[in-house]
């Protein structure tokens, strides 16, 4: 049985070691935008896409990167199952020409399962710079499959890949015996290594020129050394936060002014149409205000941070962070790769949780999943920036102020890392004993990111993503809050009843009823926490447009916010239940409702306890 569906003519799978550029080739063939990055484990699930070549439709599957097909890990099982059960017409085995010997073992292993394959010597330009030259003709003869050199950034090599792939697929229709065990090579890794070495001796020549390796060694000397490794890492993140904080200011202001202008026009229009007050209220005060807040204040920092972070990912620096910090993780009884998933959590916790698949030991993976939410995601960073700017650096502080904001934010993130390590340590002691999986991490060579492509693509991606979420979540949230604020039971609104209910608890932990409500209602998306607060506060009297920090600042102080409130707000922003998307992802990844609930309970309980302690200690002194 062939794994084709009716709409497409052929099914093709992309297999290879981690970080050899499978996703980049997949994107180039399908025109899709799978996220790519220069580190092992960037892609941990299958991607699907369609390519049209010469009038035929090809269904492409981008398999997760694996070092072998022994089924030790989840990704390997997925990849092997796909090759065996879906029986694609052709497999594109993508190899890193730079580490050809090891990659060839994998190719031989795949060829033992699937004969109809195309070998793609990727990163061939990098290998050439490193003095490695491969005789692809000879290799093709030895392996019995077509071999082509590619470099994902070059167009003509892709054209060739397309035509070779098509030929291979067409051929597969005629010869059905895809898995002839008699002539298949062994899957014993030892035999594969020896075979791979023999093949390399025949068709690979190396010169002394090692330009890429030398550059990597030079950079590593600075980026991982005892004296400079950690300081540079901190400085890099400070820079990242600073660019985010200062860069977001201008678009925020522009967008804010623009949205205010439109809002006035909308009011005029509604008045002209004699619209009922209810409609004006729910549409403009409810939906429009919330939407414009999310777009003007939350979107700019997100659309700046994410692309910059993608550049760091592309460069190959992330695995060095894991390398630099592993000792601390080791002491906490967890895996150094957890710092990779935490870094991803800074972008999006749902992605961070999925990324935990790169950790092999079930116990260490579970801990990484349960603690991922402690790293504030892209949707929460703007809240932190807003609160820090308003209460600790001042809205009119200019350039110096933004540096201060960035440094305070860096401190907050460092504290997040420390809390994560502490919670991990406690969990690792509490959870049932299991031996550690050992630390094995590949450090890829540094690569120059494709600045323009990465920036443009991820700014667009992020903007569309946030706008989509804003429309799906912020708009309904705005409507609901407006209704809550304007439907009266007795002599006060539902919202007032709710916030009054939470008020004693809220003030005990240094917050107030409105903030507690905002976090609860912000469960679908944390971007809406501040807009919900604004709605709730403005419903209780003060009416104005709040699209800039200074206006927000005025509103917060009018509602009795103090430094204590600000500190507790920061704690609560970091330590509360994950958003609904992340919770669903945790449920999917762990397959356990209990662990999902645990992942909500741990940060929330910690947040409440920390807030209560902080608030009550600060009250003694302030």
């Amino acid at each position, binding site marked *: 049985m062939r794994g084709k569906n009716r709409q497409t003519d052929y099914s093709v799978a992309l297999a290879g070691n981690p970080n050899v550029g499978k996703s980049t080739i997949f994107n180039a063939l399908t025109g899709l935008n799978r996220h790519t990055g220069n580190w092992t484990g960037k892609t941990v699930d299958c991607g699907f896409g369609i390519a049209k070549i010469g009038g035929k439709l090809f269904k492409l599957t981008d398999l997760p990167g694996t*070092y*072998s097909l*022994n089924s*030790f890990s989840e990704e390997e099982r997925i990849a092997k199952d796909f090759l065996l059960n879906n029986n694609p017409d052709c497999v594109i085995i993508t190899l890193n020409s*730079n*580490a*050809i*010997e*090891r990659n060839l*073992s994998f190719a031989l292993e795949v060829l033992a399962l699937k004969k109809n394959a195309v070998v793609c010597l990727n990163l061939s330009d990098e290998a050439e710079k490193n003095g*490695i030259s491969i005789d692809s003709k000879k290799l093709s003869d030895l392996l019995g499959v077509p071999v082509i050199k590619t470099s994902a950034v070059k167009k003509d090599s892709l054209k060739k890949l397309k035509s070779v792939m098509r030929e291979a697929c067409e051929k597969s229709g005629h010869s059905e015996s895809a898995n002839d065990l008699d002539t298949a090579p062994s899957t014993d*890794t*030892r035999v594969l*290594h020896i075979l791979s070495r023999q093949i390399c001796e025949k068709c690979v020549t190396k010169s002394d020129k090692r330009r890429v390796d030398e550059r*990597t*060694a030079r950079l*590593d*000397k600075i980026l*991982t*050394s*005892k004296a400079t*490794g*950690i300081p540079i890492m901190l400085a890099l993140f400070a820079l990242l936060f600073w660019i985010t904080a200062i860069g977001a200011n201008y678009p925020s202001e522009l967008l804010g002014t623009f949205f205010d202008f439109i809002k006035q026009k909308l009011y005029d229009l509604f008045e002209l149409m004699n619209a009922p007050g209810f409609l004006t209220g729910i549409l403009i005060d409810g939906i429009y205000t919330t939407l414009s807040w999310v777009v003007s204040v939350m979107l700019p920092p997100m659309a700046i941070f994410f692309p910059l972070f993608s550049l760091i990912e592309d460069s190959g620096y992330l*695995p060095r962070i*894991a*390398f*630099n910090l*592993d*000792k*601390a993780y*080791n002491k906490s009884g967890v895996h*150094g790769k957890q710092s990779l998933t935490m870094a991803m959590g800074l972008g999006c916790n749902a992605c961070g949780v999925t990324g935990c698949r790169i950790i*092999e030991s079930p116990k260490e993976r579970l801990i990484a999943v349960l603690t991922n939410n402690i790293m504030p995601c892209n949707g929460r960073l703007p809240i932190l920036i807003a609160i820090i700017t308003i209460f600790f650096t001042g809205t009119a502080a200019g350039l110096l102020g933004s540096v201060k904001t960035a440094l305070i934010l860096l401190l907050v993130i460092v504290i997040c890392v420390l809390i994560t390590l502490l919670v991990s340590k406690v969990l690792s002691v509490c959870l049932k004993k299991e*031996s550690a*999986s*050992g*630390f*094995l*991490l*590949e*450090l*890829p*060579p540094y690569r120059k990111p494709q600045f323009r492509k990465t920036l443009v693509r991820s700014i667009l991606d992020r903007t569309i993503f946030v706008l989509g979420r804003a429309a799906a979540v912020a708009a309904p949230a705005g409507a609901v809050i407006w209704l809550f604020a304007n439907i009266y039971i007795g002599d006060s609104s539902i919202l007032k009843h709710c916030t009054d209910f939470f008020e004693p608890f809220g003030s005990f932990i240094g917050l107030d009823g409105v903030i507690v409500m905002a976090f609860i209602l912000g469960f679908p998306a944390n971007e809406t926490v501040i807009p919900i607060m604004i709605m709730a506060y403005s419903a209780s009297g003060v009416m104005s447009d709040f699209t800039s920090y200074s206006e927000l600042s005025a509103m917060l102080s009018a509602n009795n916010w103090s430094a204590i409130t600000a500190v507790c707000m920061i704690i609560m922003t970091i330590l509360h239940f994950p958003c609904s998307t992340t919770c669903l992802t945790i449920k999917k990844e762990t397959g356990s409702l209990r662990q999902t609930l645990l992942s909500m309970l741990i940060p929330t309980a910690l947040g409440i306890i920390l807030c209560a302690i902080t608030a009550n200690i600060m009250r003694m002194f302030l």
Partner: protein
Amino acid sequence: MENIISLCDLSINKNGTVTEIKCKPKLKNRMSDLGLYEGAEVCPVMKSPFDDPRAYKVNDTLIALRNSDAKQIKVKPGD
């Protein structure tokens, strides 16, 4: 003179040949996938800021290993 030492004791930029890997089968398999198997050439190239883990050049790639794991790997130092 045959002197077999642990990989974690091999000094930086010294070549060695793996003679024995005493890790648990699962980790041993993983190491083997990454090119670290009996008979492979290995060379420590750098330490992380806290001395552990270290990074090793194996078969044209750079692999980070904790010292506790490297202790289980026996190597014969080269020249």
